[in-house]
């Protein structure tokens, strides 16, 4: 099963509970902020995401699903629905910092 933090948030589900329920069926994870905002500037509790990933004993990669300005130009529906956008490298940097702080990925300095 493929878990996406943005879609989970749309359902109003606690990510820790949702991931615990999925358990060992978890095969892939997308990281995207609420309202497709950059994680760290959004409303998702990333510590709960971490708790859920740990409960599911997930050891795979987490993939950042971030829509930079170029993508928003190519897919107008995304731009219309979620107008806030950071430059792609800034967005990745902020997301990595957020995930590091939440204990999901390793600090880049390690």
């Amino acid at each position, binding site marked *: 099963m493929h878990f996406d933090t943005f879609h989970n948030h749309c359902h109003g589900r606690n990510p820790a509970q949702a991931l615990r329920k999925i358990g060992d069926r978890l*095969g892939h994870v997308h990281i995207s902020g609420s309202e497709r905002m950059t994680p760290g500037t959004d409303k998702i509790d990333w510590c709960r995401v971490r708790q859920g990933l740990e409960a599911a004993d997930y050891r795979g990669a987490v993939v950042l699903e971030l829509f930079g300005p170029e993508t928003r130009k190519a897919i107008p529906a995304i731009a219309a629905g979620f107008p806030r956008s950071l430059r792609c490298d800034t*967005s990745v940097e902020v997301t990595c910092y957020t995930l590091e702080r939440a204990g999901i990925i390793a600090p880049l300095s390690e």
Partner: protein
Amino acid sequence: MSSSLQLPFGVMSLVDGFWVNAKLLRRLRTLCVTHGATACEVPYPGLRLQDPIESICTFCVQAGILNLSICHFFGDGMPNPQVAGEQEAALSSLRKAIDFASAVGATKVVGPLGISIGQPGTLEGATAFLKRAVTFAEQASITLCLEYLRPEEDKVFLAAVV
């Protein structure tokens, strides 16, 4: 706080544009190397490369990608699984994505169902669709990861795959 899970991370090519062409791959390579990403995901429908297999394999080596995934709707667009022609077209499209994933060394094809769940009879149709898709995936040693967008899709997945 407990210790870090230290999971590897990756980026979707969508971070820098939808169409996966040579220019995007160059920028994506820089992005991955700069941030230490060892995973990457590219949309199969977005590939715009002269030699997609060679280009993606070269990108993975140069960017240090260890974990590649291919995303694709499990059903191209929104096929009606009750209409045989549309289901066959969707299966054919998904099979191409599975074959591509296998050729470039990816282990997963990921994505949402792309079927209009909630329409009369579609749950059964979607279940049948997934069962057939899983057969292709198993033959190619590819894992299909169904992204749930709606609670109904959880039921489809649980009924069809688990």
